[in-house]
């Protein structure tokens, strides 16, 4: 008995020694692995992390940081065979053209090989105009720096320059398919009445250039159009006009705060259209939180829904960084993956002395992409630098977004 105890103690001591040694070895390997990542490939993000639309920039930054962290676990193989880390710097460009212009100028002075931003379509529209329109054009001294945008939604922004690429949802296709679905699901609808937040570039442009065009194309007759601004708090006048027209479809092209404002007023005045259609940006947790009951049944096409295990993982990782994932910020994760792929495919080196060539390789790599892997499936790339992302048609039911149509 005594002998057994003694041998047990010896075994136990040896086991402890082995565990301690193993711990040392693992720590050493991890530390050694870190020390091999001396090569840092700089990338820059920029968006509105202050001001009215700061939540969009904060979400993009959080998702981007989470994506870079995941990529850096394995590292990226550079053109000269070195395993490198991505080194992200994120800049606040507010939602302001002057700030964004100075941020872009600052980023170009750094060793960043690519920039990702900005948040606001109105800002993007102006600053993308500063970039060289046609690559290698001798009489165009515009900025020569690749941009891969995640948030600005206004249609056709990537056409501004051959250095600009976007990975944003294609609202043109999504709303076309949404109205196809509405026609199938609700065959007897004839009229629509729209409400637009007119002081936001996205809501205003998406209404006039996308939603209205498709609604008309599908044979629906417009019976009214109401406007408000993003600071408005009272919607009783607009709601009475909705009530007066008694349209089959009510379309709200506005961001969550005023979408909820008008929907609460519609509910109060007991205005119940056959179907309620919203802006892509409103398919977010914010809408579900602000007006769970009033927004019941609102139908929106979206390019993000936590449908896949990867998408759910991104939601968790972003939450750890203090951000939410929606159709805008989800693209930031995909963008980081696209950048990783191009670095590896085009042999980007990531050294200060190769900066100019690396930026060019990044641009050419982005231009050459035919498709990329997204959170919800394969994203097709178009010749003009835009994306054709997989999408869903979702409806707010019982405070949760549910997929009502999956065309993928």
């Amino acid at each position, binding site marked *: 008995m005594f002998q057994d105890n003694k041998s047990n103690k010896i075994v136990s001591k040896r086991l402890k020694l082995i565990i301690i040694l193993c711990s040392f070895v693992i720590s050493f390997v991890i530390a050694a692995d870190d020390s091999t990542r001396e090569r840092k490939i700089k990338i820059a993000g920029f968006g509105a992390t202050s001001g009215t639309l700061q939540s969009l920039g904060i979400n993009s930054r959080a998702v981007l940081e989470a994506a870079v962290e995941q990529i850096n676990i394995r590292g990226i193989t550079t053109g000269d065979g070195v395993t490198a880390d991505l080194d992200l710097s994120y800049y606040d460009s507010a939602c302001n053209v002057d700030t964004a212009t100075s941020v872009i100028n600052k980023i170009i002075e750094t060793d960043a090989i690519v920039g990702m931003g900005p948040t606001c379509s109105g800002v993007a529209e102006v600053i993308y105009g500063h970039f060289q329109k046609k690559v290698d054009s001798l009489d165009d001294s515009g900025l020569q720096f690749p941009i891969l945008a995640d948030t600005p939604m206004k249609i056709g922004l990537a056409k501004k320059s051959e250095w600009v690429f976007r990975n944003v949802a294609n609202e043109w296709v999504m709303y076309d398919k949404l109205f196809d679905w509405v026609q199938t699901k609700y065959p007897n609808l004839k009229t629509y009445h729209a409400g637009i937040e007119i002081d936001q570039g996205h809501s205003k442009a998406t209404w006039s250039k996308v939603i209205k065009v498709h609604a008309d194309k599908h044979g629906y007759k417009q019976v009214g159009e109401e406007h*408000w601004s993003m600071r408005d708090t*009272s919607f009783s006048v607009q709601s009475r006009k909705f009530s007066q027209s008694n349209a089959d479809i009510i379309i709200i092209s506005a961001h969550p705060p005023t979408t909820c404002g008008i929907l*609460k007023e519609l509910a*109060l005045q007991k205005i119940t259209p056959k179907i309620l259609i919203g802006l892509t940006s409103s398919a977010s947790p914010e809408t579900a939180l602000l*007006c769970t009951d009033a927004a019941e049944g609102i139908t929106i096409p979206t390019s993000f829904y936590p449908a896949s295990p990867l998408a759910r993982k991104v939601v968790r990782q972003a939450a750890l960084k203090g951000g939410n994932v929606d159709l805008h910020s989800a693209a930031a994760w995909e963008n980081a993956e696209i950048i990783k792929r191009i670095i590896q495919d085009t042999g980007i080196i990531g050294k200060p002395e190769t900066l100019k060539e690396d930026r060019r390789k990044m641009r050419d790599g982005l231009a050459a992409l035919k498709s990329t892997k997204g959170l919800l499936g394969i994203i097709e790339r178009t010749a003009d630098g835009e994306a054709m992302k997989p999408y869903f048609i979702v409806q707010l039911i019982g405070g949760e977004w549910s997929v009502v149509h999956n065309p993928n």
Partner: protein
Amino acid sequence: MMIFLQNCIDGFMIGGFYALFALGFTLMFGVMKWTNLAYGSCIMLGVFSGIWMHLHFQLDLFWIFFVIILITVIAGYYVERLCYRWLPKKAFMAMMVSSFAIWMQLDEIVRIYFPSRSYPFPRLMDNDLMMIGPLMFKAEGLLILVICGLLAGTIFLFLYKTRYGLAMRAVSEDPVASRYVGINMPSILLGTSIIASVIGGIAGFLMATSDAQVSTEFGLWVTYKSLIAMTLAGLGSIRGAVLGGIILGVIEANSLWYLGAEYRDLVSFMLFFIVLVILPGGLLGTAKEQKARAAVRRG
């Protein structure tokens, strides 16, 4: 005609809020001769503090109300110290501009700690519609109008029936003479600032609970609506603030219906401008006030 009447009713409902906010604004202007541009931001800070307490400690509305009042008063005190008390009394421009700087500062504080665009706020009551014939009234809107009337009445009585109110009016009329007759100026000025903040806190709470959500644009909205409402009917006048709020609400509702949202603010600001040019003392200003303010305007 019915549409016009309904627009007026809607205008009264939102005008009640404008009037409430303008009441605090006008009190400060009347007694302290100070255009406190940070007023809306102080209220917003109070409202967001209430939201924070609600989110973290699940406080019920009763306690949220007190938190909002308390923080609005503290913020008002902070602004009063920085932008009024420590500046020379004749430096009107410096007082106004410094309050603008504090406005921006408070707005940024709120945006830093509340990064989302908007936050839900618990409701005080279910907002029901009441129909009287073809006309529609909101229960909540009527409540706001009643509260506005009660607050305006209370302030009026306070100013005209109490010794403290008399002292406030004396300071408003002639600060130098008030000091000679032994009125404690710092106490009056501080008291005015606190009363204005309490009114602002009440208005902020009612607005937030009525909308059931608050955005970080709230401070700006309060400041420019109450500034117009206060100026329309009479700078520094209690009745003027209430009337100005209601007029602004009615004009907005009608211009929204007949002209559209694009013209609503254009019409309000045009009216604001016309009143300032033709009746510098506001719609309720006396002939003497109009003359005096017109003389100031001419320099």
